[in-house]
């Protein structure tokens, strides 16, 4: 890499791009401040949205130019990113990219590329979106950098491992698998030991070799500290939803969770969630809710339906129904208290083994019951997600238990997180309306 090329790169990603995005953020902030909702039930948007957009854009902007300048790793959303950050990797989360494509309605074209190449419509729609992007080079973010390293962790599903095997073959780069056996009650010692050894003996040596750098324990601890602080703040952000009215709904959370997934371990993420918490606390103080006239509060279970975020928010908002929390967004915060800087990799092994998706169906039911109580929910919507079996299997029993044993109204909604072809608008609307009616609200 020549000096000129490096200077050009630094100027582009550290000066020119960020300056432009900062200017864009200022413009957006002003627009938010003067924004008048088109209806009387929508509250003003969160001002932090301008910063969120800047952060995400900056990340993908850097990604356009990063190849050859910094090592690039593609990592699953629940993957152990801290050792990679400590080694200076630029990290891409294909699931986030797929979600972003879904939210921008660009996913169908990308899935089509994968399906044309022979990938079945019965595989995860995130995977199809990203495999399509990898095969075609198309993406709504301009350009995705090619990976130098792939890291797949089984703590969210087995699917990501097959998906990363496809990427491994396509890009012909090393793949490190971090296998986290499923947890029923407590992970036995041999499981934690297994995960820890994979981090220490597989991930770090491979990542060092690819990055041509040595792992620094000091830097790692710093990154873990940042991760912990950001995760704790994210948890505090989510817990503001316990207020009535809730200052934040899951529709905001799904958008604003991007940094905790994508930029976990960066100092800026702490500042960002600190600012977000401040804004939400202000809202609580002033009695500003995510919607005006909050009547009923529902818990959301499972991934979002990315291509329906806005319309769902509007459809529910007009009835005075808000969704203050979801088991999904909580997953990136609930384990924050478990992070123990002094216990290093052992602590990392534990954290990465315990996400909700890697735990039993009974544990998920317990989580839902606690959240219903803590957030004063009136009911639960369980998104039966065709593309996410580990999250969805068990929901039929969980719904029955919620209703029959705990008296919590619950709706099972069939959809797919990224594929609109597996979603029936009319059917969903009818089911949702009946459910809302059952909760005793109308749109008067």
């Amino acid at each position, binding site marked *: 890499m020549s000096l000129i090329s490096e200077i050009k790169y630094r100027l582009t990603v550290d000066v020119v791009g960020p300056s432009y995005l900062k200017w864009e953020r200022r413009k957006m902030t002003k627009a938010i401040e003067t924004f008048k909702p088109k209806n009387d039930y929508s509250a003003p948007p969160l001002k932090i949205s301008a910063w969120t957009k800047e952060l995400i854009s900056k990340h993908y902007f850097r990604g356009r130019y990063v190849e050859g300048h910094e090592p690039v790793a593609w990592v699953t959303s629940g993957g152990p990113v801290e050792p990679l950050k400590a080694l200076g990797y630029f990290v891409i989360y294909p699931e986030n990219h797929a979600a972003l494509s879904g939210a921008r309605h660009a996913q169908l074209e990308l899935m089509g590329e994968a399906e044309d190449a022979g*990938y079945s419509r019965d595989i995860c729609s995130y995977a199809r979106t990203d495999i399509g992007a990898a095969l075609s080079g198309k993406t709504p973010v301009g350009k995705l950098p090619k990976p130098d390293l792939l890291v797949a962790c089984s703590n969210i599903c*087995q699917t990501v491992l097959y998906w990363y*095997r496809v990427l491994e073959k396509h890009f012909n780069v090393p793949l490190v698998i971090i296998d986290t056996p499923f947890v029923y009650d407590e992970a036995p010692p041999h499981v934690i030991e297994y995960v820890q050894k994979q981090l220490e003996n*597989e991930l770090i040596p491979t990542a060092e070799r690819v990055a041509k750098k040595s792992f620094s324990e000091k830097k790692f601890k710093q990154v873990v500290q940042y991760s912990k602080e950001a995760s704790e703040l994210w948890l505090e952000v989510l817990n503001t939803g316990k207020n009535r009215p809730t200052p934040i709904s899951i529709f905001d959370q799904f958008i604003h969770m991007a940094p905790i997934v994508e930029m976990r371990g960066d100092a800026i993420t702490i500042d960002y969630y600190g600012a977000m918490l401040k804004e939400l606390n202000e809202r609580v103080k002033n009695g500003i809710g995510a919607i005006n006239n909050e009547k009923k509060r529902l818990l959301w279970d499972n991934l979002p339906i990315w291509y329906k975020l806005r319309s769902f928010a509007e459809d529910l908002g007009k009835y005075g129904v808000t969704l203050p929390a979801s088991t999904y967004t909580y997953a990136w915060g609930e384990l924050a208290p478990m992070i123990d800087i002094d216990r290093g990799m052992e602590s990392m092994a534990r954290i990465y083994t315990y996400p909700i998706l890697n735990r039993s169906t009974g544990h998920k039911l317990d989580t839902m019951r606690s959240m219903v109580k803590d957030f004063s929910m009136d009911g639960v919507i369980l998104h039966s997600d065709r593309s996410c079996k580990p999250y969805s*299997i*068990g929901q039929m029993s969980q719904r029955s238990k919620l209703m029959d044993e705990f008296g919590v109204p619950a709706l099972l909604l069939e959809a797919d997180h990224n594929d609109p072809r597996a979603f029936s608008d009319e059917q969903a609307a009818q089911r949702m309306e009946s459910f809302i009616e059952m909760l005793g609200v109308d749109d008067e």
Partner: protein
Amino acid sequence: MKKIKGDFMTIPKIPGRIETIKKFKESRGKIAAIFPIHYPRALFRAYNILPVEVWGPTGADTSYSTAYLQPYVCSIAQSALAYLLTGDLDITDIVVAPHTCDSLQGLGSILLDFIKPKQSVITIYYPRDKRDVDVEYLANEFKSVGEQLSKITGIKLTDKKLKEAIIREEEADDLLKQLYENKVYLDYNDTEFYKIIRAREYLPAEEFTIIANEALQNKTEKEKTGIPIIVTGIVPEPKGLLKVINELNGRIVADDFACCGRKLYVKGKSSNPYKYMAESLIFAVPDSSRENSINDRANYLVNLAKKYGAKGVLIYEVKFCEMELYYIPQVRERLKEEGLNSVIIEVDINDSLPHQTITRLEAFLEVIE
């Protein structure tokens, strides 16, 4: 051993599952119903438990399972659960749910948390790579399973007894390999051949050994005729498939079915029996459920096709089987590079073989002929 008359020749008389189970129970043994795919067979036998694999079965009334599992869960998981819920597995003492895929992992969890059947439920998580750390983990996982089996049976197992069970199972596995290696010379049609092979799913090793030895006697000088193909997938169900292939002048020369060919385990190296069993499983035939690389799986299929002179590959999958579906495009690409045609057929094991599928098979065989 009595013989029965087959379509073209005689096959050894193979006792059915229920008959085998009853006989084993009479000898005070316990029965474990095993969901797909891998498990330490010798460990169960060492505790005087007969593992009986549950690959469906076809024809189960899945209206029972759909109260627990969404319709996008495969028919193998649906049927296994339906079979359990209708009481057809009441004869068993233990249900074993390996973490083969997201669906079976979920099923295991539902069993423990919500359904709570009268049988003891044991889960086994096997690793997704083949590094030293994976072997070490799996050995520990097997030890943990052994502790659970000890509680259920009251048996205190010694390494010596476990090693004896391993040797017994390996003898049966060696014969399974020999059956495959001699398949093209054995005078059985595919329905008959797979009846013998699949008896390994439930017969005690010592009984399978007798049947396999007898079957190997039925070897001819000349290779059987028909268009040679290999088949990859999960399970050769519905059974009509094998008959149709032969009727269309096709001939399976080797398979990569999860219930058959992927169970050709290798011998371990360690002197520790738990580690030995772990090595045996981890270094077996490449398998989607163990997340082996696409290159490993493609190479295996190409080599298999070359070894047995197959002209094409039938990719025969159960609908919604994600772990298999991810591999298909890149594996097919590799097969094509090697001059091997392939066709994909997806089935629900509870459906009969549709005419559309038969027509596709016919067209495929014509093309490769």
